C-alpha cells in the first residue's frame, strides 16, 4: 500500500505529461481529430435518438441529453477496457527498457479518456441549456459519480492489463462482453422501465455502469438525489477491485516482459 502511494507520487507527473503528449499527438496527426472526440458521440446520439424516438417511441424527458450522458460515460468506460487489454504489448518499447509500475500506463489512459469525457460533458451542458433543463443542487452528485466511474474503470483495467498479457485473444472476448454490456446498460433506454420487473430494477443496480448512468441522469437531468448508499457501496467495491488488481500487478509485473 505504501509502495503504491510512493510509486504514484513518483510517476504522477510522468502520467500527466504522457497523457498530454498523447492527446497532442492525436490532434496533430489530423486536423479534424479533436473534432471527432465531439462528432463521434454526437452522431451516435442522433442515431440512437432517431431509433428510439421514431421506432421504439421512447418517452424519456430530454431524450437526446439522456442518451448523450449515457454515451459519454460509456465511451469512457469502454475505451478504458479496450485500451488496457493490449496496453503492455502496445507499450513494449517502454516496458522492455525501463522499470515502471505497469498500472501507471492505465493512469495515463485514465487522464486521456477522462479528458475526452469532460469534453463531451461540455456538450451535455450546452444541450441542457438548449433544452432549458432546470438545475438543482443535486447536480453536485456529478463529482462522486464520476469518481466512482473512474475507480471502477481503473480496477477493471488492472485485471485486463494482467490477463491481457497472458491470454492472446482476450481482446476478442472483451469486445463481445463490452457489446453485451453496452446493450444491457441502457445507454439509449431506461433499463428499469423497459425491462420487465423485477429484472429491470436488478439490472439497473447490480450493473455498476447502469447504476452510475441512472444516478448521473437523476442528479443532473431530473433533479433528484441518487441512491447514496448504493453509490458508496459501488465506490467501495471499485476500491477493492483496484486494490486486488494492483496487488496482482505488483506480484507479476516483472514477468510480463518475458512473455511479450
Amino acid at each position, binding site marked *: 500500500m505504501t509502495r503504491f502511494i510512493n510509486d504514484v507520487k*513518483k*510517476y504522477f*507527473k*510522468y502520467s500527466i*505529461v*504522457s497523457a498530454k*503528449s*498523447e492527446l*497532442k*499527438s*492525436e490532434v*496533430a*496527426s489530423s486536423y479534424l481529430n479533436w473534432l471527432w472526440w465531439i462528432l463521434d458521440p454526437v452522431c451516435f446520439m442522433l442515431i440512437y435518438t432517431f431509433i428510439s424516438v421514431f421506432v421504439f417511441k421512447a418517452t424519456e424527458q430530454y431524450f437526446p441529453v439522456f442518451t448523450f450522458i449515457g454515451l459519454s460515460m460509456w465511451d469512457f468506460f469502454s475505451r478504458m477496457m479496450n485500451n488496457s487489454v493490449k496496453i503492455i504489448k502496445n*507499450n*513494449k*518499447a*517502454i*516496458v*522492455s*527498457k*525501463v*522499470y*515502471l509500475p505497469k498500472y501507471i500506463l492505465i493512469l495515463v489512459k485514465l487522464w486521456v479518456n477522462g479528458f475526452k469525457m469532460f469534453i463531451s460533458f461540455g456538450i451535455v451542458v450546452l444541450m441542457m441549456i438548449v433544452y432549458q433543463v432546470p438545475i438543482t443542487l443535486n447536480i453536485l452528485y456529478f463529482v462522486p459519480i464520476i469518481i466512482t466511474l473512474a475507480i471502477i474503470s481503473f480496477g477493471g483495467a488492472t485485471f485486463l492489463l494482467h490477463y491481457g*498479457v*497472458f*491470454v*492472446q*485473444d*482476450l481482446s476478442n*472476448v472483451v469486445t463481445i462482453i463490452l457489446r453485451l454490456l453496452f446493450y444491457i446498460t441502457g445507454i439509449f433506454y431506461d433499463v428499469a422501465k423497459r425491462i420487465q420487473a423485477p429484472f429491470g430494477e436488478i439490472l439497473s443496480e447490480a450493473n455498476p455502469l447502469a447504476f452510475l448512468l441512472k444516478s448521473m441522469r437523476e442528479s443532473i437531468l431530473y433533479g433528484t438525489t441518487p441512491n447514496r448508499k448504493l453509490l458508496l457501496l459501488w465506490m467501495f467495491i471499485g476500491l477493492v477491485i483496484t486494490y486486488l488488481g494492483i496487488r496482482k500487478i505488483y506480484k507479476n509485473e*516483472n*514477468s510480463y*516482459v*518475458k*512473455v*511479450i
Partner: protein
Amino acid sequence: MNNYAIEVNNLCITYKSLQSYSIKKSLLHLKKNESKEIEAVKNVSFSLPKGNIMGIVGKNGSGKSTLLNAIAGIFSPDSGSIDLKGNSVSLLSIGVGFQRELTGRENITLSGMLLGFSEQEIQEKTGAIIEFSELGHFIDMPVRTYSSGMYSKLAFSITAILETNIMLIDEILSVGDAKFKKKSYNKMKELISDKDRTVIIVSHGKETLENLCDNIMWLHDGELKMIGDTKEVLEEYELFMK
C-alpha cells in the same frame, strides 16, 4: 573495500511456462501446454566497486542481456538478489523505448522522466540532447518519421546526456554514420571513464573491451565461467571460442 555499487548474489533467472496462450487454442487442444524451463542465468554472484568498468562476454544466448535487464530492474530475479545501493541506473541499448506517434522532443521528456529525472532537470538538458543528437528540425517531428540512424542517435543522446550513476550498455558503441560513430564513441569513453560512474558493458568487440574495461566477466550458458582481469579472461575466452 566496502564501496560497492552493485552486489549480485546467487542470481537465477528462468523463463518458464510463461508463454501466453489463447482461449481458442486451449479450447481446441485440451492437452497441457508443455512448459519448458530455460535457465537464462544460473547462480551468478559478483560485486562491482564504485567507478569500476566491467565487460561481459559470452556467445549468443548465454544470458548477457538477461543479466543486464535484471540489474536494470526490468526482470525480477527468480532467486538471489541484486543490490544497487540506491544508485540510479539506466540501460543503454539499441533503440530505447520511444512512442512512435510523439515528437522527438516529447520523447526526450518522457524517457527522462522514466529514468527518474525531474521535469526541470530534463528541460535544462533538452538543449544539450538535441544538439548532441544532430537531429535539427526533426526533433519536433513524430519519431515514426525518423530513419533508423536518427532513431538510435536520439536514443544514444538521451542516455548519454542524462547521466546516471550506473550505466548498463548493451552493444551500442556504434551508432549512426561515421561521424556520429566517432562522436558517440568519444562521448561514451568520456562517460565511462568518469570516476564516479559504474559501468557494465556487453560487447563482442574485443578492442572495445580491451580499451575500456577494468575487468571482464565471462558467461557461458548462464553460468559464470570466469571473472577477473581483462587480459586474462579475454585470452581464455578467445581460446575457448576457437
